[in-house]
């Protein structure tokens, strides 16, 4: 048995109740376009699966009601008698004479008087004409009488008769057989049973609409900030850095004192730093590294400097706080590893007592790193930062002087961003002061930097408000593009 084309199958299905149908109604019932139906029935005719016949259709268009009927209605509604004068006021002369002619011939009316003539219904039954006209107007089946009356009306130009022909199709017995055999041959889908039994062999899967939309699905995904951190981490690892991990809660000593930030420095005040309520680090007392740092603050100790010239207070150093920068982690590593070549990095959260706005957060991420090594100087800092940022998509980097208490020189990293159309601030860098390294037992030069990552992320995701990164809008997290365009 020959297989059917999908168009043929649909048309045959529409004809399966054995009725005659034309192209138009087949198109509606099959959902195909009319020309698709035409093509399909041509094929089907050739195969003998359908037959056709021609049908004649007459269609009547009523122009006006016959005048004799109008006349009778008027007389009836006025009690049966009206003067000619009165009739002239409601019917045109043409209608009046035609109507009077027919009505008199049928003996429905009689005319009386000479000067003032009047017209009167005779009582002869005229209802058959009314019902006949009704059937003609409604396009109902017509009796012999009706057809006669219709002929009369059409001659008088009151009814127009249109005739047209159309072709209708009907399924043949062969067609029905072909259709039922198709039902058996198409598989709706593969099943474990079909595959196991091999019953799929020689059959085809029912074609489906491959253009139709499928239900949307959201894969599991990492947060974009975590993804970006992974990317920066890979860059660091590729440049020979070892990753650090450390606590968010730190004593003021490591966050500030060890970095030569004097105890009355404005950055240490509560309006900038989150101190923890009644908790402190009791391990800190004036001995060992703590004492060396204390002396450096007070008088420079053996670092070669003058120090800040104030009395260092151990209680200030014991306070616990949320780290304000990740330099606390790199400087601790410096203390731990001692005077040797070192490359370490920490990408982690820092905390500032800030009010949130479009460019400030109370919690954000910094990607700190340091390189300790012989003969390192400003040139190497510039060289490292250019390469580091090139890998992160920033084409050029330059440095501007700035100030941090723990680096000298202190340099602001400026990056050229094509998206921003100019130079943008990326973060701080510098070379640790001897007042920082010597108390930790390190006299090698130490290059250091600690920029935030959020600035680069705003560029990458074309955001203007830093808060959007952490709004956890599930819609954005689900639908954002994985490969965000461009730099950053």
């Amino acid at each position: 048995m020959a297989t059917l084309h999908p168009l043929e199958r649909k048309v045959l299905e529409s004809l399966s109740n054995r009725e005659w149908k034309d192209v138009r109604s087949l198109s509606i019932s099959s959902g195909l376009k009319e020309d698709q139906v035409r093509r399909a029935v041509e094929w089907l005719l050739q195969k003998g699966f359908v037959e056709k016949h021609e049908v004649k259709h007459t269609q009547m268009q009523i122009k006006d009601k016959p005048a004799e009927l109008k006349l009778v209605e008027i007389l009836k509604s006025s009690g049966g008698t009206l003067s000619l004068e009165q009739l002239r006021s409601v019917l045109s002369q043409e209608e009046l004479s035609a109507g009077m002619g027919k009505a008199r011939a049928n003996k429905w009316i009689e005319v009386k008087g000479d000067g003032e003539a009047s017209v009167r219904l005779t009582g002869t039954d005229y209802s058959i004409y009314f019902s006949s006209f009704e059937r003609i107007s409604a396009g109902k089946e017509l009796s012999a009488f009706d057809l006669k009356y219709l002929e009369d009306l059409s001659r008088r130009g009151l009814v127009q008769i249109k005739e047209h022909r159309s072709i209708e199709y009907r399924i043949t017995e062969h067609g029905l057989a072909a259709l039922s055999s198709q039902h058996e041959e198409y598989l709706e889908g593969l099943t474990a049973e079909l595959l196991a039994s091999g019953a799929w062999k020689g059959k085809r899967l029912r074609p489906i609409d491959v253009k139709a939309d499928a239900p949307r699905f959201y894969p599991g995904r990492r947060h974009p900030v975590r993804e970006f951190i992974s990317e920066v981490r890979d860059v660091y690892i590729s440049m020979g850095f070892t990753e650090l991990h450390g606590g968010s809660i730190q004593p003021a000593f490591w966050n500030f004192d060890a970095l030569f930030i004097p105890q009355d420095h404005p950055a240490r005040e509560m309006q900038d730093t989150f101190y923890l309520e009644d908790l402190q680090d009791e391990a800190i007392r004036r001995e060992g590294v703590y004492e060396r740092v204390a002396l450096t603050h007070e008088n420079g100790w053996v670092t070669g400097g003058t120090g800040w010239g104030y009395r260092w207070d151990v209680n200030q150093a014991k306070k616990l706080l949320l780290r304000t920068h990740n330099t606390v982690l790199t400087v601790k590593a410096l203390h731990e590893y001692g005077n040797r070549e070192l490359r370490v990095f920490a990408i982690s959260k820092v905390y500032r007592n800030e009010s949130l706005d479009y460019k400030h957060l109370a919690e954000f991420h910094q990607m700190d790193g340091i390189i300790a090594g012989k003969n390192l100087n400003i040139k190497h800092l510039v060289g490292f930062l250019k390469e580091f940022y090139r890998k992160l998509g920033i084409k050029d980097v330059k440095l501007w002087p700035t100030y941090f208490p723990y680096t000298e020189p202190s340099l602001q990293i400026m990056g050229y961003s094509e998206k921003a159309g100019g130079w943008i601030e990326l973060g701080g860098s510098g070379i640790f002061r001897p007042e920082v390294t010597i108390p930790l037992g390190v006299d090698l030069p130490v290059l250091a930097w600690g920029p935030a990552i959020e600035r680069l992320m705003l560029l990458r995701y074309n955001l203007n408000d830093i808060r959007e990164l952490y709004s956890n809008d599930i819609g954005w997290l689900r639908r954002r593009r994985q490969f965000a365009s461009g730099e950053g």
Partner: protein
Amino acid sequence: MPVVKADLERLARIVGAEKREIVERIPYVGLDIEELTESYIRVEYSPNRPDFGSDVGIARALKGIMGIEKGLPKYRVEKGNLKVEVDPKLHEVRPYIACVLAESLSLGEEDIRQLISLQEDLHQGLGRKRARAAIGLHDFSRLAQPIYYRAAEPDYSFQPLGYERKMSISEIIEKTEQGKLYGNLIKGKNTFPVLEDSAGNTLSMPPVINGSVTKLTVETKEVFVDVTSTDKKTGEQVLNIIATTLHDMGGRLKSVKIVYSNSTEVTPRLKPFTANLEKNVVERLTGLKLSKRDLAEYLSRSRLELRGNRVYIPCYRVDIMHPVDIAEEVALGYGIEKFDAIYPPPNSPGERNKFESFLESVSNFMAMSGLLEVMEYELTDEKSLIGNFSREDSGIIRVMNPKSIEHSLLRDSLIPSLLSVLSRNLKEEYPQRIYEVGRVFSRKGNTFDEHWNLCMMLSHSKASYSEAKSYLASFLNTCIGIKTSTEPSSHWAFSEGRTASILVSERETGVIGEVKPEALECFGIYTPVSGFEINLTMLYNMLNNSSHSI
């Protein structure tokens, strides 16, 4: 960070250069452009350079780096007759005073604005909110000399600046705005410092408020400056910055004799101070091999001077405290933009931190299980952390003086964070399945605990304990590979009868359950939620203690 607003026209005139060139060079003296318009520029400067607190101060540095005027700026102080007598009773209160008199001034509105702004920045920065040093600027023509810096009783009264009548010291401290701000710096001693002239006029009550008699105006030709302090060196540094500024505004400086009970001093001392040039430090930091001549040239562009082996440093530079600071001046004079870039290649490969790797693997596993990662703030507010669950708040760590109550507590659980995310995403398609790998904090007696948790929450019309347990089992069995059990328990976030402790090697490491409807209602969530939270730090330590090495 303090900010100076400078009129560009005026700055260009003082420096003697084009406006455009000035704007270009400003970043290279360490100033950060905050705002730039046709007529003015606002720059942020670092607190280590208080001499940048006025446009004339910035001009000095610009002239140097642009090569217009190099080397030490010259300051001359003529010997003056003015005397200030210091009351020994102030020794315990605010012992030091340093003064200068600037004559022949013709101050414009802009000069006065610059002076007031400099004065304010010095109060905040070097003066440490006036605790260490406070400045008075006075119209000298209204004063009768000598001047007395003396101790007064609380009932001493005078008319403070900005007030219509005389007030007593106690009244000033209690009622005036400045009194409330700065009164505590001198309170509790019962004697208060005042500056008075020979006619009994009160110049000021340092560090709180000035008198009304001696206010500066554009008519002022002679300015008397007093700097009172608790630290002598700071007081003199502050005075030097004001004095050099007045000098650069065209003033002739006259010295003032300060008479203490056992010594006499003459202020200001504007002589440069000196330091040895340590060439090896310069070379080590900059990587430049420099001749004496080069060194002298670069230092002079930073307005320092090299004579022999000594570096002369202007009196207003309070930031030079180590040979590396001199090295930086050389680098800036040379031009930071001119340094070659040398990439230092690594000697050894890099290395991941094992715990960070573990956290990342856990997160990857959860994402691969079809969940969406979120990252919430660690600082949170009372309502979402505690109130919404009607639970005990023992063990919660609070921070002091948060700017916003949204950041007043450190979370001890990720559950409130994730419910908060769900409550903000009610219009997004369900099911929602989210997780976070994050830090939590708690107080343990006198110390604290900080560790990492994994929390997962499922939200949809059929979210159940059983679905949460599927995820938990898949995580523990296939990601971690440790045998666990769940035992009935109760928890502030979950419904009774639908809550269990997660036990790993008989130790409680987490909790799983269906979130109780009371909490969902508080968060405004009208879809069932179930989930679990587990201590990753603990799991990591268990893994490392079991034999995981090959």
